[in-house]
C-alpha cells in the first residue's frame, strides 16, 4: 500500500520546510529575489524569504520558509539496518565462551591524522559509555585500544600479530571527507595483503552510518550514541554467523 508523505508544519502535507543559507551577493531587493528564485529551483513553492541579513561585504544570509512540492512513498523506503539482537554483558560473555571457547580478540583505535579518541574510548575502555561497560571490562574479550592517529599499516600489523578477530576504527573528522579517505586506506591495505576476510571490520564515529560503512566495505558502522554492548552483541552475532 502506498504511503505518500511530505513534510508537516501544522496541516497534513503542507510540505513546510525551514531553510537557511548564504548567497555571495550584497543584501537588497535583488538579493532577496535571488534567494526566492534559488529556492524555487529546489522544488518549493509559496516561498517566504523571511529574513535577509548582510554578514559580510558581498554576502547575505537568508532565512526561508517554503512548501516543498515532492511527495515520496514511504512504503518504498528501506534502510540498511544491522541485524542483531542487543544482548547484555552476561549473555554476551556466556555466548563468547560457549562459541569460541577462547577470548574474542579485538583491536581498535582512531586511524589517520584524527586525534579524537573519546568515541573509541567510550566503546573500548573499562568505563564504557552511559552506564554500559566498555569492551575491556568483558572477561571474554581481549580488547586493545591503540589510541589515536594510528597509521593504517600499524593497525593492520598489530591485528596480525595479535590474532585479532575484529578491527574497530573510529573516525570523527569529516572535513574534506577525510574519514572516507582513511577508512578506504585501511580497506585497501587489507585487500592488498589478502587479509580483508580475516577480520570483522567495524567503523564508528559521529558521522558514520551503517550504510556508509557497508558502502566502504566494512562489516558494520556505528553512529552517535552507540553502546559498547551493542558493539559486542554485533561482534559475537557475526562470529556465530561466519562460523555457521
Amino acid at each position: 500500500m502506498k504511503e505518500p508523505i511530505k513534510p508537516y508544519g501544522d496541516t497534513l502535507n503542507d510540505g513546510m520546510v525551514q531553510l537557511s543559507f548564504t548567497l555571495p551577493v550584497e543584501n537588497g531587493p535583488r538579493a532577496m529575489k535571488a534567494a526566492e528564485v534559488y529556492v524555487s529551483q529546489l522544488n518549493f513553492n509559496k516561498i517566504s524569504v523571511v529574513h535577509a541579513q548582510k554578514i559580510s561585504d558581498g554576502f547575505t544570509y537568508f532565512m526561508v520558509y517554503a512548501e516543498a512540492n515532492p511527495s515520496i512513498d514511504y512504503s518504498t523506503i528501506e534502510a540498511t539496518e544491522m541485524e542483531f539482537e542487543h544482548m547484555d554483558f552476561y549473555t554476551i560473555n556466556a555466548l563468547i565462551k560457549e562459541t569460541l571457547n577462547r577470548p574474542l580478540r579485538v583491536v581498535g583505535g582512531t586511524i589517520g591524522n584524527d586525534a579524537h579518541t573519546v568515541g573509541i574510548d567510550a566503546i573500548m575502555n573499562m568505563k564504557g559509555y552511559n552506564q554500559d561497560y566498555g569492551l575491556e571490562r568483558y572477561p571474554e574479550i581481549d580488547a586493545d585500544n591503540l589510541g589515536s592517529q594510528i597509521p593504517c599499516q600499524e593497525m593492520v600489523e598489530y591485528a596480525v600479530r595479535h590474532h585479532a578477530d575484529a578491527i574497530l576504527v573510529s573516525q570523527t573528522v569529516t572535513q574534506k571527507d577525510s574519514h572516507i579517505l582513511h577508512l578506504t586506506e585501511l580497506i585497501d591495505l587489507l585487500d592488498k595483503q589478502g587479509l580483508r576476510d580475516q577480520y570483522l571490520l567495524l567503523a564508528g564515529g559521529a558521522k558514520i552510518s551503517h550504510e556508509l560503512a557497508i558502502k566502504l566495505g566494512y562489516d558494520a558502522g556505528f553512529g552517535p550514541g552507540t553502546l559498547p554492548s551493542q558493539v559486542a552483541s554485533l561482534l559475537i552475532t557475526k562470529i556465530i554467523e561466519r562460523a555457521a
Partner: protein
Amino acid sequence: MPQIPINTQQITKSKQLAKEIADQVQLFINDHASVSVERSVLRLYGVDGIDHNDTPLPNRLVEILQQQGDLNGGISRPFASAMLKSGLNAQQTAEQVEQGQLKLDNIANFSSIELDNREQALALEAIKVMDRSNARKHAKIAKNPLPPQPWRYLIVATGNIYEDCTQAESAAYSGADMIAVIRSTAQSLIDYVPYGPTTEGFGGTYATQANFRIMRDTLDKASIEQGRHIRLVNYASGLCMAEIAACAAFEDLDVLLNDSMYGILFRDINMQRTFIDQHFSRLICARAKILINTGEDNYLTTADAVDNAHTVTASQLINEAMAKNAGLTDDLLGLGHAFEINPEIENAFLYELAHAELARALFPDAPLKYMPPTKYKSTDIFYSHCMDTLFNMASVMTHQGIHLTGILTEALHTPLMQDRYKSISSVNYVFNAARGLGDELEYKQNGFIVKRAQQVLDEAEALLERTKLDGLMQTIEQGAFGDIKRPMEGGKGLEGVFEKGVNYTNPVMDLLEGRS
C-alpha cells in the same frame, strides 16, 4: 520568598487604592447586567444547541425577551416560569420557546414562591455544574499531579480543532504542562458562542464547547501518558466572557484568559459591557476553580515596555482587586506580565529582572503568568531563540508561575509542530540547568535592579492615586493603559448592557456572591 526588598506599607497602600478603584466600578456593575450574563445563566440552567439559523438557543431566548422589552427583569424568572408551564427540562423548554410554542411572558401564571423555588432549584443545579467540574479536576490531579512551577504553557492555533489535537499531543510529549487553544481572530467580537466542533479558523480555532471537550479528551489521554495533569486553557475575554466561563465549567477547563480590561483596550469592546461581563465570568471561575490569566502583557505590545512598566503593575493590582471582588483566591490569579523590552537597550535583562521580581514581590501567592518576548522578536529565528532563552532564564530565576513558552518563529507564523519542539527544548534545558539559581542570588542593595523595581512601584502607586480620583473608566478614556484611549460610550456591545430592573433576578449570581 520575595527577593526584592519592597516597603510593605507601600504595598498595603497600593492594594488599598486598587480596592477602592475596584469597589467604585463594582457599584456600577451591581446595578447592571448584559445579554451575555443572561445567556450564561441559561447555559448554566442547561440550555444549549442552535436554531435552524445556527443561532445558539441562549441568544434566541434572550433576544425574544429583549424584543418583548422584558430584559431588565433578567432571564431567570421568565425562563423558570416557562419551565413550570412546559413541565419539560431546560433544553426542551428552550426549544419550545424558540419554536414559538411557549412564551417567556407568563410570569403572572405562577406564585412568587413557586417561581422562587424553581429558580432556586435551577440555580443550585447551575452551582453543581461548577462544583462537579472542580471535583473532576481534583480527581484527575490526584492521579496525575501538577508539575512544579513555572508551568510550561504552549499554544496551538491551527484553526482546526483536530489538527490542534495533533499539535497538542506533540507539545505534551515534549513537556508542555498547559495547552492553550488560541481563538480564531475576532471571535471575541462575535456576540455568541459558536456551536459544535470547528475546522476553519483564522489564526486560531473557535472557542466552542464541543472544541473544549475534544481537546480536553486529548489532554486527558496525554496526562495519563505523561503522568502529569496537563491543563487546558482557553479565552474568555470578549463579548461572551461569562458564557465562555460557563462552557468552560461544563468541560473542565483549567484556565481562562480573563481580564477586566483587555476587551476594552485591545478589542474595542465597550467598557461598561466588559466590566459587567468580567464580574459574572469571574464568579463562575471562582466557583469552578478555573484559574484566570490576565492580559497586562498586551500593554507592552502597543506601549513601550520600559516607560509603561508601571501601567502593568497598576493594572495587575486592579485586576487582583476586581478578582477578589468576584471571590477568586490567590491561587487562581494568573496575573499577567511580560518580557518585552527592546533588546537593544543596554542592560535590558536587568530591567526585566526588576519588573519580574516586583510582580513576584507584590503577589507572592499568585501563579503569575509570564509572557515571552513577542514584539521585538526577529524574523531571524536563531536570534529569537536566544531571546526566548534569556526569557526562560528570567522566568525560572524569579520563580514565575505560568511560563508562556516563547516560540522562535513568533515574528513569522503561528507555531509549526517543530517550532514548538525547538522552543520547549530551550525551556527544558534552562529550567533544569538553572532551577535553583534564584535561590542562590541576592540583588545588591541600592543596585540598579532594586532601584528600578522601586521606581516602577512608585509610578504605579501614582497612577492608582490618579485613577482613584478620576475613576477607572475616566482613566481608560484618557489612554492610561497600553497607550489606548477608549470612550465610555464607545466600542462594541454597549447595546447589550441594561440596567437591572427592580424585578431583576439572577439566583446564580446571588448564590455565587453568597447572597442566598
